């Protein structure tokens, strides 16, 4: 009777097999982690510069409400400008809507209604463009002294083109964390930033559509085109 003996025969590549398997698993896991972290990342908002503030993420309560009202008012102001200057002769000076004009159009946040009271009864002042200097070519509506604690101030700037002034034809909205501020010394972006103002950036429906559908969203017009049209509209209004 023979005795069976057990002999363990190791495959030639046994030394590396486990190592290779572990390496392959590690590579797969690392790839998945990288994919989820980088490719799978879905930024919810456009990145902001230091001198900007998000209406969606940062502003709250009355300040967010005032901003959203201003955001629609910026579309109405050029229309009202058209209305009030319709009979102005071409060689005369066109004027920008006064606060009374805006209130007569029932336009928030300028209208003194209960919503205005609830949002801090912010005091608005209109600064018409000056003929010379840094304030040339900028109409501004300044809102300050809200009654809520920690309420900031607002500035709606209608930039437009006049001879020799490099100003962009857009309406921008700025926010200052201070409750009381005086009239800015400059209507230009850099000057406003130096004086503590931050441009408010909305999270717009266009950005949300882009977030949901990506760049593939088949809109009839894009936000950039809208901006271009707004620029042209203001150029048309102020090109005199």
């Amino acid at each position, binding site marked *: 009777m023979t005795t069976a003996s057990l002999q363990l025969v190791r495959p030639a590549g046994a030394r590396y097999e486990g190592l290779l398997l572990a390496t392959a698993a590690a590579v797969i896991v690392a790839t998945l982690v990288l994919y989820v972290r980088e490719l799978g990342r879905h930024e919810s908002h456009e990145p902001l510069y230091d001198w900007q503030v998000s209406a*969606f993420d940062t502003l709250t309560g009355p300040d967010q*409400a005032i901003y959203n009202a201003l955001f*629609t008012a910026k579309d109405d102001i050029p229309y009202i400008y058209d209305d009030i200057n319709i009979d102005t002769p071409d060689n005369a000076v066109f004027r920008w809507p006064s606060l009374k004009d805006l209130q007569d159009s*029932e336009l928030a946040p300028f209208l003194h*209604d*209960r919503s205005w009271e609830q949002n801090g009864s912010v005091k608005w002042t209109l600064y018409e463009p000056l003929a010379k200097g840094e304030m040339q070519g900028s109409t501004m509506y300044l809102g300050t002294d809200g009654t809520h604690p920690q309420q900031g101030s607002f500035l709606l700037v209608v930039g437009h083109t006049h001879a020799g002034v490099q100003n962009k034809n857009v309406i921008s909205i700025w926010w200052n964390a201070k409750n009381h501020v005086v009239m800015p010394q400059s209507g230009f972006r850099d000057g406003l930033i130096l004086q503590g103002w931050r441009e408010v950036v909305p999270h*717009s*429906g266009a950005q*949300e559509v882009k977030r949901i559908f990506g760049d593939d969203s088949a809109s*009839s017009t894009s936000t950039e085109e809208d901006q271009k049209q707004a620029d042209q509209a203001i150029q048309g209004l102020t090109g005199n």
Partner: protein
Amino acid sequence: MLSPIRSLLKMPVLAMLAALTLVSHAADAARLKVGITLHPYYSFVANIVGDRADIIPLIDADANPHGYAPQSADMIRMMSMDVLVVNGIGHDSWAFEILDAAGMRKKLKLIYANDGVSLIPVAGAPNGEKVVNPHTFISTTAAIQQIYTIARKLGELDTANATFYRDNARRYALQIRKLRAEFDAKITGADLSKFRCATMHSGYDYILQELGLQVTAVIEPRHGVEPTARQLAETIDRIKAAKVNVLFAEKYFASKLSDTIRQATGVRMYSISHISSGKYTPEKFVDEMRENLNTFAQAINDSSKGA
């Protein structure tokens, strides 16, 4: 049989009739066929285009746009549209399923009504999470912003009527702003400091913000999603702690949950229209927003009196 002379006399008449028919067909072909997904967009477009374009609702008037399941008839309707006005930020996601099913995703022009709206987060979201609120159409100011966007984009597609659309949009915007003036008149002298509200879902955040009213708590963690027992208990505690005295619930979708909260906290409940059911009409948005504002005014006045 007509005499040759009479036949000749009739020819110009026939030619004129033929020409008129051709002109009429050309005019029909030129008329925009504007599709819409939600009831407010029907009212918006109707007030912008007047009688110069046709409006085609994508889904039946009695269909519930919350969790709508697309039907084959929707695809047929979509085929006849030149352009479709959509919410696009979460309230009509089924429209994109219909677009895909009909193979129209790349073919049909879309107007994203919210393109120019400054969106706000859902109030009272769990853990302070910032989630986009898609209920931009239950509003006045955000509605006006959408009306301007729709008018501008329809004007790009139908340049001959662009000025007409813009002027109509402005007139309609003023009509909506007047609703706010009516609302203000109804709450003259009311003490707003006593008004503390919760809402069943986040549908009224835009209009409440525009009225200068803050939402203390939202019951449903997501629209149409009922809270867990623990979430509900926490919300009830929050309502009691914040001395909330008003609860706004959806008019046509009453739930037992709102009754439970009312019983547990003693809040008064008021119903607000979501403007998302019933017949499509040009007047619907203004009529239902006026009704909503009357309800808000009633709630404020009741709180003010401590009723």
